[in-house]
């Protein structure tokens, strides 16, 4: 554990430019493009081991070179000795950008009216200027899946990088359609339906999904046969899922529901299915592994779903699934506090998953699940320069994130939270005026 002197020193070091710019009225910090040479770091590549005392060259938004003693004219050199380079962390399930202030309906853009609204595009509603975005990215989380919610088919989720002024600048190569699999679980402590009622509601929901899937299949077949179809945006979008063009993100948590979902995937021959949530995955880990369906689980910092469960059931869930052979990514399911992703991974690591695998679960594994591992998820030449530099293990709260790069842009290490700290650490006037 560190002592205050070092921390304050480090903190002041990276805040210094901010403070001096802050003197100029109206000055705004912007992401910086160009070439950067990160000198002498320990590079945690994720896919190719750890490279000590290594340089990483960033140019044209990409990691153009990894090696020792690199030189590049025109590149801004950043001394990274004693520091670590990690690929940007990917949160594979959030609401980031779709809500600004949780309780204010005017700022809630994640849940549209209707039960079957797969045509609702999260990407359309993501606010690139959300205050939560800088708060998140300075923690090293560079990439998130923003997911709409509510109803059977809430919309279409989008994978975004946390830098850009238009949704298109942020979009980074993955769309998926979430589906809420019918559940026989309670929605919360206030849900006082009888067991029979819950079962009936779940059966009805499953029937609804089957009917809709049937309709989408028909739509797809007719579309493939180039029939002249009436405008039906919901089915148009679902047809893409049936065809396998768009992955289906099946939100399911209770053990029995997970089994039903796996059966359903098989029955419907869903081509590109991903299970999300999966809080009771540990109960049916072998079945999930056998079905070879990837899982996005979280939050890890959560209560067990049953009162008889061991206290650490949620902490150990990712590790247990991994051990059974399931491909596991970790999400926060959060919006303003997506910055807690590394800590969720840290708890998973401590409770059975191990550091290395937990790091993969928020980097290369989600990149693979989303099919974006060609440009994200690890430090490799040719991949997007979406990475961060830290002074230690990013899962540890005592570690500071020094720099963040997204698509090669050097991100200003500031946010509302940091600016308020700067203003109020030593307030002026203090208790008394003059």
């Amino acid at each position, binding site marked *: 554990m560190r002592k205050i002197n070092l921390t304050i020193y480090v903190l002041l070091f990276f805040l210094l430019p901010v403070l001096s710019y802050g003197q100029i009225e109206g000055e705004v910090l912007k992401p910086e493009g160009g070439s950067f040479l990160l000198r002498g770091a320990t590079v945690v590549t994720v896919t190719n081991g750890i490279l000590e005392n290594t340089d990483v060259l960033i140019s044209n938004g990409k990691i153009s070179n990894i090696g020792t003693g690199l030189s590049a004219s025109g590149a801004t050199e950043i001394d990274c000795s004693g520091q670590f380079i990690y690929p940007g962390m990917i949160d594979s399930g959030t609401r980031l950008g779709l809500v600004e202030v949780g309780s204010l309906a005017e700022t809630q853009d994640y849940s549209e*009216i209707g039960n079957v609204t797969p045509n609702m595009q999260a990407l359309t509603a993501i606010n690139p200027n959300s205050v939560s975005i800088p708060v998140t990215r300075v923690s090293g989380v560079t990439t998130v899946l923003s997911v709409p919610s509510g*109803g059977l088919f809430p919309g279409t989720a989008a994978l975004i990088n946390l830098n850009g002024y238009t949704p298109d600048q942020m979009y980074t190569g993955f769309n998926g359609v979430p589906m809420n699999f019918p559940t026989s679980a309670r929605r919360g402590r206030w849900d006082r339906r009888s067991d029979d009622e819950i079962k009936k509601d779940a059966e009805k929901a499953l029937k609804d999904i089957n009917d809709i899937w049937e309709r989408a299949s028909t739509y797809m077949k007719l579309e493939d046969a180039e029939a002249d179809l009436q405008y039906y945006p919901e089915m148009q979008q679902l047809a893409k899922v049936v065809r396998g063009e768009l992955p289906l993100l099946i939100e399911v948590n209770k053990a029995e529901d997970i089994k039903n979902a796996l059966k359903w995937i098989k029955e419907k021959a869903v081509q590109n299915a991903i299970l999300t949530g999966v809080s009771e995955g540990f109960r049916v880990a072998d079945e999930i592994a056998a079905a070879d369906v990837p899982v996005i689980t979280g939050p890890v910092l959560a209560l067990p779903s049953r009162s008889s469960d061991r206290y650490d059931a949620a902490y150990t869930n990712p590790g247990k699934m991994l051990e059974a052979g399931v491909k596991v990514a970790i999400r926060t399911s959060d919006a303003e506090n997506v910055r807690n992703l590394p800590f969720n991974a840290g708890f998973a690591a401590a409770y059975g998953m191990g550091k290395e695998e937990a790091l993969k679960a928020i980097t290369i594994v989600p990149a693979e699940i989303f099919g974006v591992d060609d440009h994200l998820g690890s430090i490799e030449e040719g991949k997007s320069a979406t990475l961060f530099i830290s002074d230690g293990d990013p899962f540890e709260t005592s570690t500071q994130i020094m720099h963040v790069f997204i698509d090669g842009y050097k991100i200003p290490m500031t946010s509302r939270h940091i600016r308020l700290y700067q203003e109020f650490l030593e307030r002026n006037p203090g208790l008394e005026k003059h």
Partner: protein
Amino acid sequence: MAKNKSFTSLKVSNKSINTNLSLTCMIKRQNTLMYLVLMFCLLFINPAFAQSDHSGQRRITGTYAITNATVFTQPGKSISSATIILKDGLIKAVGNDLNIPIDAQVIKGDSLFVYAGFIDVASEAGVSKPEDVKRSDDMDPSDPSNEVAGITPEREVLQYWDINNGEITNWRKAGFSIAQLVPKGEMLPGQTALVVYGDKESTNILAESTGLYAQFETARGVYPGTILGLMAKWRELYKNAQLKYEHASLFKEKGNGINRPEKDPSLEAFYKVINGQIPVVFEAEDELEIRRVLRLKKELGFDVVITGVKEGSKLAEDIKGADAKIVLSLDLPDDKASKAKMEDATEEAKKAHERVVAAYKEALSEAASFEAAGIPFAFSSKGAKNGDVFKNIQTMIENGLSEEGALAALTTNPANMLGISSYTGTVEKGKLANLVLTTDSLFSKDAKIKYVMADGYLFEYEASKSKKKNENVEDVVGKWNYTSETPGGTSKGTITFAQESGNLKGEILVDDPDGSGQVTRQLENVHYDGKELSYTFSIIVQGQEIVVNTKGTLSGNEFEGNLSIKDMGTFPFTATKEPDFNL
């Protein structure tokens, strides 16, 4: 037997008996004539001086002899081949070799078992709920009137009781002949009273104001709205009642220079409790509720009878220390979960199920545990089904309760608890003629109740069970389309009724208040008497369960009535039956 010609006057005297009784306290005027007249009238309750009865329902005689029966005079004591002589509502003699009076109707007791009539310490049978108080639009929910807040300790349960209610018939049929009635309502619904389940022409009142009834229930949307507020309000009411009593006493004693105490019926209702004349009859189901009652008792110092108890034998020491009386609920948990088939379940589920089974077993043996802890307890019918009583008591016996203890809980314990053991609770000379006659020993599986005698009146039952069918349930069975007008707009849906072994059941499709679409809810308390149809169902709104009561009249394929929601109001409701094409 002389026929009395003054037909009409007698009829009046019979019906106005309640008023007459309460009038007796005004006789201090020494109006001897009036007194004599009253006495004269009272005598005519005795049906020995009877009039004609064109219904042909009246009994022939008030004298009975039960012969050659096995008589359990009290728990643990029995006489075989005994005779019991009963006359005019009292047990005249019990024993062998008794002379049978000439006017007695003889009941051959061969193979019958006779017990004292059962006593129910908290019953809602025949008690109706007072109408909800109308709340004014400008009411301050933080400071509602006592009435709105469910605080009406001044109410007498007898004002809301009807001996003709069918529930009483059912409970009498289950062997009960005396009940302490509890009023319906919320936190402090009113005062209890003691009645006998006798003839419908009698008032059947044994004692008024026998206890102050209290529950952990609150009115909605006003203070107190939860048990948090309820506990605080209880303390405050009680302390203010004490202060008011102090003030009133001072005023009475001194008068001069003392402010007039403001009249407050709610606080005055506590006086008898404060003086130790009556206990608080507090309904508390589980351990935590019982502890809350004991906490209040400890702080405030009243006598308490805790009713509707379903667990708490573990608190035996605390209960004894507090000298609290315990009345167990006759309701037992259902065995659906504990009897579930687990053969194909996971090891984990099996383990969890074992705990459910253990919890179920523990619930069934609560009565036995109380007995073992040396706490005498009685039973209450509130919340239980009359048809389940024997099955439930048998279950308690299977789980360790002694038969003697079970009988005591139905007879002598409640008599002691209620302070009425001088005149009831056992089969002894001079006690009220309240008896239960069964075809086999009371707690054996095949025992059926053949007769119940209550207040000297004999009620005979078919010893073979046949379920009473709802009247013309076919009128109701089928699918109905409904429309209701509520502040939220018009809502429509369907209700489906079906018949299951003579009983009506049903489900309703309603708009889901928490989302889109419709949800199915099971109907409960479905009643149909050939004309009036009523049922309830509940919906969840923002995590709160809201009970919707529907009541209306059926004529042909039309059902018209109201649906009412507590604290929200009553809304018109109509439904039309879909034609049945299968016919």
